[in-house]
C-alpha cells in the first residue's frame, strides 16, 4: 500500500474524482494537511449544492413514489454550474411535489374532520338535542362545537371558565375530544377565540338545514361529501401520476448526474488546498499506482503532480487493509470481520481460520450422514444463504470426511469401516489428540501474534505483551516441565528456569508499567502473573472439548438408538427421525458455537489485533466509461 498525494488545479477536481472512482483503487485519507497554508479547502459550495439537490431528489422520489434506478450510461464531468442548474430544477419540481403532498395532507384532514362531524351528530341524535337551536347564534349566547386534542381539554376548561364560558366534554375519539363551549356573547369573545386557537380547537359546523332534514337525507349528504372528497383524492392521484410521467426521465437524469457528482462529494473531507490549488491524499495498493497515474493523465485537462511514498511506521494504524476477495473464503472472511479487520501488515487470518474451523467442526461433528445433510441443506438453500452456502457446504463435507475417519453414518458405527477408529473405542486417545491439537494451535497462534507485532513495528509488544515471545517461552517451558512431570516424575531444571525466568520478566514488565502504592502494585503483579499460568493451562484444556464433542456425538446417537429399540416400529422410526433432527439442529448449533469460541478466544485474541480498517476505495456503481 502506498500513500499518494495528488496536487492539481481546483477546476480539475470533478475530473479527478471521476478518474479515481473509475480506477476504484483510491482510499481517501481524511487527515488534515500538515501545511497550514492548505487549510482552506476548495469545493465546499459543490458539496452543499450536491447535498441540497440530493435531498430534493430523495424527497421528490418519495412523494412521486419513483422506484426506477438509472440505466448505466456514459460518464461526464459534472461541474458546479451543472449541479447548481440541476438543484434549481429540482427545487421547482420539489415545490410542485410538496404542494401536492400538502394537498393530500389537507384532504386527509378534511376527511378526518368529516368523520368526526358524523360521529358528533350521531351522538347528538342519541342525546335528543335540538341542533337547530345550537346552530342559531343568539344575541346573548355563544356556542362553539368542535374538537380539541384530548390533553388540552382540562386547561381549556379552566381558560374558558375565566372568560365566563362553560365547556362540556361529550365524546372522545382517538386523541381528540368533542366539546361544546357555551357562554355569554360580548367583549370576551375575542380573547376566547385566541385561547381556542392556542388549544388547537377545530370547529365542527352543524350542516345547513339540519332541522329540516330526515336522518336519511343527512346520511345522503354525508355520503355525497365523502364522494366529493374521494373524487378530489382521485384527481390528486391523477396529478401525481401526471407529474411522475412528465418528469420521470428528468428525475432519472438527475439521479445519473448526482451519481457522477457523488465521488467528488465523497472525496470532500480529504480535499485540501489554497485558492486554485487542490491537494488530495489517499492510500492506493502499490500495483495500482501506475494505472491510477495513467488514468489521471488521460483525463485531467490541467497539469497535476502525483507523489507516492511508503507509509511511515506511525501511519501504519491508519493504512487500510485490502479484504480477502476469494469467493470460497468470503463467508469465513465475514466471520473474521465480526471480530475485527486485520491491521495493515498483519497476516490476514482468514485462510488459517477457514482451515482450522473446518478441521475442528469436522472432528467435533464427524458423521457421513449428518455432514451430507448439512451440505445438501446448504446447497438447496444457496439462494437464500448466498455467500454462506459455501460455508455450510464446506462444514458438511468436513463433517463427512471425519465421518469416514470415525466410521459413523447417522450415528451408526457398524455400517462403514472406520479409517481410524470410532470415538468411543478409545476416548483417552481421542482426548490426547485434542490436547496435542490445542497445544499446536496455541503455539501457532502465539507465533503468528509475535510475527504480526514485529510486522507492524511493535517490538516491545512482540516480546512482552500478552501472548508475546516471553509468554510463548513460558508456555513451552511449562509444557516441557509438564511432560517431564508425567513421564519422569520431576519438572526438570531447564524448564523450571525458563518458566520462572519468563514469569519474572513479565512481572518486572508489569511492575514498570503500573502506578500507585507499592502494596497495590504487588497485588496486581501477583494476580496478573498467576493469571498467565492459569490462562495457559485452562486454554490448553479448553481444547479437550474438540474430542469431548466427538464423544458426545457418538453417545447421543447411542442414546437415541437405545430409546428407539424400546419402542415399536412406528415409534422407532419417529424416534430415529426426531433424534437425528435433534442431533443436527441442537448439537450442530452447539458445536458451531464452540468452534467459534475457540477461534475467537483461543486464536484471534492471541494473534489478531482486529483494530485495522478496511480498504474502501472511491467508486461508483454502473457507469464505466469516462468522457471528458
Amino acid at each position, binding site marked *: 500500500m502506498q500513500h499518494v498525494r495528488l496536487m492539481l488545479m481546483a477546476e480539475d477536481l470533478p475530473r479527478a474524482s471521476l478518474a479515481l472512482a473509475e480506477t476504484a483503487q483510491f482510499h481517501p485519507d481524511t487527515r488534515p494537511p500538515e501545511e497550514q497554508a492548505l487549510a482552506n479547502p476548495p469545493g465546499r459550495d459543490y458539496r452543499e449544492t450536491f447535498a441540497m439537490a440530493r435531498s430534493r431528489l430523495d*424527497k421528490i422520489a418519495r412523494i412521486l413514489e419513483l422506484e426506477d434506478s438509472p440505466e448505466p450510461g456514459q460518464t461526464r464531468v459534472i461541474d458546479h454550474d451543472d449541479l447548481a442548474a440541476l438543484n434549481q430544477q429540482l427545487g421547482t419540481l420539489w415545490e410542485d411535489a410538496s404542494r401536492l403532498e400538502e394537498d393530500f395532507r389537507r384532504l386527509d384532514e378534511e376527511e378526518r374532520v368529516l368523520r368526526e362531524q358524523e360521529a358528533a351528530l350521531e351522538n347528538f341524535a342519541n342525546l335528543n338535542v335540538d341542533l337547530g337551536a345550537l346552530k342559531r347564534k343568539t344575541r346573548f349566547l355563544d356556542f362553539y362545537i368542535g374538537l380539541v386534542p384530548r390533553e388540552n381539554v382540562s386547561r*381549556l376548561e379552566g*381558560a374558558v371558565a375565566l*372568560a365566563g364560558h362553560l365547556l362540556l366534554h361529550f365524546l372522545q375519539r382517538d386523541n381528540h375530544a368533542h366539546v361544546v363551549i357555551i357562554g355569554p356573547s360580548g367583549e370576551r369573545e375575542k380573547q376566547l377565540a385566541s385561547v381556542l386557537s*392556542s388549544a388547537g380547537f377545530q370547529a365542527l359546523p352543524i350542516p345547513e338545514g339540519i332541522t329540516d332534514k330526515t336522518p336519511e337525507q343527512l346520511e345522503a349528504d354525508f355520503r355525497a361529501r365523502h364522494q366529493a372528497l374521494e373524487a378530489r383524492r382521485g384527481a390528486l392521484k391523477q396529478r401525481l401520476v401526471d407529474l411522475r410521467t412528465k418528469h420521470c426521465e428528468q428525475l432519472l437524469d438527475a439521479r445519473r448526474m448526482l451519481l457522477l457528482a457523488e465521488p467528488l462529494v465523497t472525496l470532500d473531507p480529504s480535499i485540501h488546498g489554497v485558492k486554485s490549488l487542490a491537494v488530495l491524499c489517499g492510500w492506493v495498493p502499490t500495483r495500482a499506482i501506475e494505472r491510477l497515474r495513467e488514468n489521471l493523465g488521460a483525463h485531467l485537462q490541467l497539469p497535476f503532480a502525483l507523489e507516492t511514498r511508503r507509509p511511515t511506521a506511525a501511519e501504519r494504524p491508519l493504512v487500510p487493509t485490502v479484504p480477502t476477495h476469494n469467493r470460497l473464503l468470503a463467508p469465513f472472511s465475514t466471520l473474521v470481520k465480526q471480530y475485527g479487520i486485520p491491521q495493515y501488515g498483519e497476516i490476514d487470518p482468514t485462510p488459517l481460520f477457514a482451515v482450522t474451523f473446518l478441521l475442528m467442526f469436522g472432528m467435533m461433528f464427524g458423521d457421513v450422514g449428518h455432514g451430507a445433510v448439512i451440505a445438501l441443506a446448504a446447497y438447496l438453500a444457496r439462494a437464500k444463504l448466498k455467500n454462506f452456502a459455501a460455508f455450510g457446504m464446506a462444514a458438511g463435507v468436513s463433517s463427512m470426511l471425519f465421518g469416514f475417519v470415525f466410521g459413523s453414518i447417522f450415528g451408526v458405527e457398524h455400517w462403514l469401516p472406520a479409517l481410524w477408529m470410532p470415538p468411543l473405542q478409545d476416548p483417552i486417545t481421542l482426548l490426547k489428540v485434542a490436547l496435542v491439537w490445542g497445544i499446536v494451535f496455541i503455539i501457532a497462534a502465539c507465533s503468528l501474534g509475535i510475527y504480526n507485532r514485529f510486522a507492524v513495528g511493535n517490538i516491545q509488544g512482540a516480546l512482552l505483551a500478552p501472548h508475546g515471545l516471553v509468554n510463548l517461552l513460558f508456555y513451552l517451558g511449562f509444557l516441557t516441565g509438564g511432560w517431564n512431570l508425567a513421564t519422569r516424575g520431576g519438572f526438570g531444571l531447564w524448564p523450571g528456569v525458563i518458566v520462572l525466568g519468563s514469569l519474572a520478566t513479565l512481572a518486572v514488565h508489569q511492575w514498570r508499567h503500573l502506578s500507585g502504592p507499592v502494596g497495590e502494585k504487588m497485588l496486581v503483579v501477583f494476580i496478573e502473573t498467576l493469571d498467565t499460568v492459569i490462562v495457559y493451562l485452562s486454554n490448553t484444556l479448553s481444547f479437550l472439548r474438540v474430542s469431548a464433542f466427538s464423544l458426545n456425538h457418538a453417545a447421543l446417537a447411542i442414546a437415541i438408538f437405545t430409546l428407539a429399540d424400546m419402542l415399536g416400529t412406528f415409534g422407532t422410526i419417529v424416534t430415529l427421525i426426531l433424534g437425528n433432527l435433534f442431533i443436527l439442529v441442537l448439537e450442530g448449533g452447539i458445536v458451531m458455537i464452540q468452534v467459534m469460541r475457540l477461534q475467537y478466544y483461543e486464536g484471534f485474541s492471541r494473534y489478531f489485533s482486529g483494530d485495522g480498517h478496511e480498504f474502501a476505495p472511491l467508486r461508483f456503481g454502473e457507469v464505466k466509461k469516462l468522457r471528458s
Partner: protein
Amino acid sequence: MSAAAHAYLNTRVSVMSARLLNPDRANALLGLALPELAERLGLQSVIEDQLSAHAKARAVEQALMQTLLADVAVLIRPMNPAERALLLSWARRYALFNLKTLIRGKLYHLDPGEIRKDLYDLPPGLRLARDELFRTENVLELLRVLERGPFSLLARQAREVYEQKREPFALEAAIDQQYYNDLVRQTMRFQGASLQPLRRLMGALLDRVDLMWMLRFRFAYGFSPSETFYQLVPSPRLLHRERLLALVNHENLRQLLDALPEPLAARMADAGDLLEVQRRAVAHQAEETRHILTQSASGVARALAYLMLREMDLMLLFALLQGGLLGLPPDVIKSAVDPHAFGAANGGGALAAAA
C-alpha cells in the same frame, strides 16, 4: 429499582455532587479573567479559535452542555426504564431547543448554514430526526415531517396554531407546554418512595416556570387571564390548577405576588420587578432542589436534583464566559449572577441566567 442499584446510584450522585459549586468556589470563579476561566474549564482552544464572539459563545455553550449530558449518561446507567425515561425526558429540552431553532429558521427563511450553526449536537438517545427535519424547506414541510414521528400530536397542534396565528411564539409555547406536561405525567406515574421527592422536585421547577410565565404573559405581553391560564402547566406543588385560576385574575404585579402561597409570597415580599422576581424564583427552586439532593433517599430524585443544580452551575459558567467573550465589564457580569445562592441555606438568590 433494587436496593443495590439505589445504593450505587446514591453513591454515584453523592460523589458527583462534590462537583457542584458552593459560594466560595462561585466567588472565586467570578474573580477570574476570561483566559484563566477558560483554562480552568479546558476551553482554551475554543476561546483562542479564530471565530466570532457569537460562534465562540455557541461553542462554549455546546461544550458545557456536553458536560451535563455526560453526567446524564453516567447516571442513567443503573436506572430502570421508567427512571431512565424521566431523566432523558428532562434532558430532551435541548432537543426541543433544536426544534424551536429549526422552526424559527424555517419561519424566517434563514440560511440553512446559519440554522445549522445554532443547533446543539446531541447524543443519539436525545436527538430529533435532525437530518430529515433540517432538509425541510419550509414550515409546512417541517410540520409534515414532525407529524410522521413521535411529535405527531405536537405537530398537529403546532400546525393549527401556525395556520391561525403565523407566529413562532405560539408554536414554541405549545412545545414548552408539551415538554412540561410530559415531565409531570411521567413523574406522577412513579410509586413508592420516589413519588414524593420527585413531585417536590418537579413542583419546584414548575412553580418557578409558571410564576415567570404568568407574570410575563399577563403584564409584559398583556394577555387576558384566560389566555394566560391556558399557557400554564399546573404544578404538582404550590401553583396547582385552582391556584393558577385565581392568580391569573390579578391586575398588577404586586397584587399577584401578594396573592402567592407561602413560602413564595414571603420570598417575593419586596420584589419590585420581573428581574428580581426571577432571581428569587430561581433561588427558591435551587433551595428546594438542594433539599431533595441532601435529604431524599430516592436515587432517581437525587440524580435529577443533582442534574438540575449542575445545569444551574453550568449556566453560571456560561454567563461568565459569555460576558467575557462579549467584553462586558466585570461588575456587569457580576450583577448578572449571584454566587451567594450556591449552597447557602437561605437560598438568597441564584443566577439570573438560569431562568
